[in-house]
């Protein structure tokens, strides 16, 4: 039953005009053929209120979901406070990873060096928790004062006969994507480069899903019901022992390619594991990805079963999506997310709901991502790299966005502007992946866009 819902009112305008900074002009363009290509991958403009995080953050969010790892931040307390349990990864076993351990460097450590304190901390971690692997993140200061974290870790490995892997991630050495690469290197350091005989390889690894709100489990369940085994997730709900088995996989499937593609390439080069890229967001992407996985594994029975499985799921979802679509068609969305892949996926998901995207920004998108984004969106959709707070304000207002998809940091701005909001970041508490995610996504968008509150403000 189609019901007309009163138009979303209650939008605010800007009190002050939003001037554009010259340095930023090259990073802002629009959809379609008009407009210039987008400058990206650059360092953030000082004072422009970039929304980006740092290299350390990138490494931490990728490695953190390894559930039985002991993660030590070697740096001052802020790095620990603000990333404690930052990723809502769920675990089926250990929850050691949900602690935030930090050497809490003080002024004396900065003056006299923090190596000894770190070495003691590692010893204590081993004797109290007996972890199989310790990751040591060196943040800004450890690098600047010249702590040799690498040697400390090496010595600890010899002393304790466990893995102790340094992650040199000073915040100033690039942006988040650099951190993803470092995390990939750390994972390679853990799993090693000894190839497993291909003839005996079996099952797949899922790279780039972090089991936020159980999404890894949803996908694993699909695969299991299709007869496809998963060796390990990298890194959602993984553990040290499972990760070490990663070389046994027949195939790597890479979700969230932005953070994990480098690792997939290394695993292909060093371990002879081929990879394919997938996405489990939206009906079409989820179905296509499952079919691609089955096809890549080469068993026609499984391919067949997969196609039927997908069709069944699609049939179940269609009437649900249709109901939401009737209430959402014609709305306008603004997207501001970390990487290009998620942005592209969201544009498509919004299209499935009849919603047009009017603004797309990412923190770390690549030139090609923007090329694709621009060819997917309408000509007057604004596309920006490393968008700033003022730009979000300007373009959401100008383009009449009805909803913003972003992280919680952007939520208050959206609300102040009278724009609905969808959290597509670490802090979500319901899964947005898989078929169940399609329903949750539609439900969340509808719940915010069609809330009665907008009629009163």
């Amino acid at each position: 039953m189609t019901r007309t819902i009163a138009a979303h009112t209650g939008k605010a305008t800007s009190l002050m005009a939003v001037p554009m900074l010259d340095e930023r002009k090259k990073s802002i363009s629009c959809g379609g053929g008009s407009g210039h290509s987008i400058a990206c991958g650059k360092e953030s403009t000082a004072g422009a209120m970039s929304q980006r995080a740092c290299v350390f953050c990138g490494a931490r969010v990728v490695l953190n979901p390894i559930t039985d790892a002991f993660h030590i931040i070697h740096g001052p307390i802020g790095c620990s406070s603000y990333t404690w349990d930052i990723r809502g990864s769920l675990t089926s076993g250990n929850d050691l990873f949900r602690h935030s351990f930090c050497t809490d460097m003080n002024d004396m450590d900065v003056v006299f060096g923090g190596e000894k304190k770190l070495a003691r901390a590692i010893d204590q971690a081993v004797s109290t928790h007996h972890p199989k692997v310790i990751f040591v993140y060196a943040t800004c200061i450890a690098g600047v004062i010249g702590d040799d974290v690498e040697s400390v870790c090496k010595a600890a490995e010899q002393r304790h006969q466990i893995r102790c892997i340094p992650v040199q991630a000073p915040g100033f050495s690039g942006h988040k994507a650099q951190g993803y690469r470092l995390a990939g290197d750390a994972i390679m350091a853990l799993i090693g480069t000894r190839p497993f005989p291909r003839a005996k390889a079996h099952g797949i690894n899922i790279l780039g899903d972090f089991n936020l709100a159980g999404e890894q489990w949803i996908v694993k369940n699909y695969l299991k019901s299709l007869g496809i085994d998963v060796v390990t997730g990298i890194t959602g709900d993984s553990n040290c022992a499972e990760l070490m088995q990663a070389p046994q996989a027949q195939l790597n499937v890479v979700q969230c390619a932005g953070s994990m593609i480098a690792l997939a390439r290394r695993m292909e080069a060093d371990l002879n594991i081929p990879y394919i890229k997938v996405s489990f967001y939206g009906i079409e992407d989820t179905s296509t990805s499952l079919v691609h996985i089955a096809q890549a594994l080469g068993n026609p029975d499984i391919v067949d079963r997969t196609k039927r499985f997908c069709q069944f799921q699609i049939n179940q979802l269609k009437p649900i999506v249709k109901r939401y679509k009737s209430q959402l068609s014609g709305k306008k969305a603004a997207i501001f997310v970390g990487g290009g892949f998620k942005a592209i996926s969201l544009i498509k998901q919004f299209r499935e709901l009849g919603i047009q995207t009017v603004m797309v920004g990412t923190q770390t998108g690549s030139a090609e991502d923007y090329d694709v984004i621009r060819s997917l969106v309408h000509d007057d959709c604004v596309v920006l790299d490393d968008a700033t707070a003022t730009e979000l304000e300007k373009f959401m207002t100008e383009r009449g966005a009805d909803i913003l998809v972003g992280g919680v940091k952007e939520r208050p701005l959206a609300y102040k502007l009278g724009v609905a909001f969808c959290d597509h970041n670490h802090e979500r508490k319901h899964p947005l992946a898989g078929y169940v995610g399609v329903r949750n996504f539609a439900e969340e968008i509808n719940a915010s866009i069609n809330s009665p509150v907008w009629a009163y403000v």
Partner: protein
Amino acid sequence: MTKRSKGAKTRNVKPEGTLEDLNVNPCKMCMPLGSVTAAYGVEGCMSILHGSQGCATYIRRHMATHYNEPIDVASSALTEQGTVYGGEANLHKGIDNLIKLYNPHVINISTTCLAETIGEDVPSMIFRWYESHPKSNTLLVSTPSPGYGGSQYEGYFSFLRSLVTTVPMDPSLAAAHQLNVICGPISPADTRFLKQMIKSFGIHAVMLPDVSSSLDQGRLSVYNRTPEGGTKLTAIRSMAGSDLTIELGEFVPKAMSPGQYLQDRYGVRCQRMNAPIALRDIDAFIKILEEFSGRKISASVAQERARYLDAMIDSHKYNSEGRACIFGDPDFCYGITRLCLENGIVPVVVAAGSACPEFKKHIQPQIDDLAQRFLVDNFDVVQAADFGDIERLAKKNGANVLIGSSDGRRVEATCAIPLIRCTFPIHDQIGGQRVRTMGYSGSLMLLDRITNALLLRKTSGFRAAIRNEFYDNTLLSQAHLHRQTQSEQLVAEAQACLDDAASDYTATREQQKHSEAVQKTKSHPCFTAGCSSKNARIHLPVAPKCNISCNYCVRRFDCPNESRPGVTSQVLTPKQAFEYWKDARKRIPNLTTVGIAGPGDALANWDKTIETINLIHKTDPQSVFCLSTNGLLLPRYADKIAAAGVTHVTVTMNAIDPIIGAQIYEHVNLDGNTYIGQAAAGILLSNQIAGICMLVQAGVIVKVNTVLIEGVNDSHVEEVTKKAAELGASVSNIMQMIPVKGSVFGGKAQVPQKKLACIRKTCRAYLPQMGHCQQCRADAVGTLYEDLSHLFLDKKAPHTQTSHHQAYRMAVASKSGLMVDEHFGHAQQLAIFESNGTSVRFVENRNLDTYCKGSDACLKEQSKDVRMQRVVSLLADCDALLCLRAGTEPMRMLADAGIEVRLTCDRIETAVLDAEQSLVSKGIIPVLSRMQSI
């Protein structure tokens, strides 16, 4: 004296042999966060952090989720280059941009770890900025705030101190008899309260900082990105001319105290006081205001005080059970501790996250008095504590309420102690900006929250606690149980006698019914082993609720991969179930049996169960109906079950001894009461016994299922079967427990097959054994050996066989793996797809040398040609290349090799089908076919 005296400061709470050198879950944040917070309380002030971009982003997120306000904090975004050669250019650029975008009157330049460590001289940089911007009237404030130099608490006062020392003071701007009030990090709501309270005395005061509206803005139709409110710069300049400064903060270091500075430099007397939380400190605050203004407390405030006193008395007995664990910044802890002390709540842990050497000395003696009154021996006051310490001490000292920030949620969960969230940060609940702790009204709001948490704990737990102590584990309950079981048996026996003597009419009818049931048993796949592969059954998942909790069970409704009882993909309504059955019957001709097996208990959902049975019974009276139950409600429904035409009932009976039963059942819910332990097992057992008797009497065939649990009932099963036989059951089904992760028995091992066989053999002496049980799901369809529920639900399975020799092959440049979205020149691998006109198949990925290697490499034309040749040979079996874009040269070379290049940005499957159509229309035969024909 420890070896490292400085280090000892931060390690005073950790016992030996723990993580002494690690902070475990921080109970503090960094200096810049405090500095930024305080800066929000100055009108038109923005902050820029001199350091890496990430610091600003983290702090913005941390504050935004507490205050639910847009938090804008700029960064000089230092990079590697800035770190090595100095960040002056970045900082200057950042200040310029900040002014362009936000036009602030004041800029708080707060340093970070990085800037301090590389030795950035911010004051000089500010000097040089003014030199290059002589006309600027923006006030730049340099705040030293290295993250390792302290916590957010010190950062907060560091900014305020820097501010009052930088602002050009002008005492002549002060109003007559002006008061300065300097407050610590408090909520906007408390700030509003303080302002109003001071105003009610007619006092002209300057409040610094004033976050009352800047961190808690109302909704307006225009958005102002520089938030309204905050202390005005002219007011700050006038502070030097005030008569008195009240600094609300017990532990502010003198070197960072703005009030101290105003006293030393301008002779404005500074009086340091506790924040006005709880009776004594509010009274003291009001006394000062009375003295300063010469006015008396207003009648309404006096009434508030009286109400607060009244509430203190009303709640004192509830509060006397309170054992609080208080954590946060030092001033917060101090205020809340005094609130607790006045009300008889013993603070058994008081933990400051920041390092604060004075802390213990100030607080410990105050707790002593109450601890002695209430005979509490153990309490700890610690500073530089982390949540590792707080959790340990809360457990050790038996805390029963946590008071602090939402960072305590982990302790709340692991120790099951309620957490009152009332200081920064509150991330998992709303209203952080509206938290009230100050004044009689605010303190009372907080006190009520604490008291209610204690009350809830008491009221929700006392029944079970008292019962457990004085009933469940006593002789009393065992005697009672025994009597109950005995009486049930007597009732059953009496009933049997009565029935024997009943009219012929009933006897014949039951006889008929029974023979009908026996007939039907032959076609029931579960009750008759011989027909289990021929006859199919459908389990209709219409009964989601369960009224008992078994330790081997976790019921989930959406798990298509698990096959075991209690599991279903979806719960159906009776009408849906009916449709589902009709549909299934069309396609499974041997569908003889309809069962309701949960996923919960069929009888706990009686309305649904009976509606489903009636619907199907009307359409097909021949169907065999069965249901399974734990038996708790059997006495209530046995007659109705028989009347509805159900011929088979499975009762899961795991024990006939309440002591063993108590190990298997976590609880039993009957008529709104929850029973645990042996009482639960006893009630369940007596109902099972009575119910089975009644069923058998009514001519229903009863199967008794017994879940075999190693080490629990494995040696007891024989007794169970014997009893089942006595009661008149027809079949016994002993099955291994499937250990389910998440259940109490999740970690238990299964009973070995061999042992199972042995037990079944023994039990065969009493009852026929169902050895062919497959422990089906609650929504199983088909025969026992082939669960079709998953494939069966799919109606139109598209099934197309690709005939390979006719297929077109296409190479696809794809970054996402889902769309054609990559430039050919950038592709490191190409995905090969095949299409046969209707369906598209992924074949493999092929790696290639990226064609485009940047402009330098492009000059070496030769290598490029060689690479292109390689690409052409790699794609020799392909008919087309699909990519987002491609250079003209490679497009020509590929065309020459007979490979059509198509530029698109579509879904791969769509693009491949489009390409194929175009190839077909051009009459091009697939390369693979051509190759084959050669």
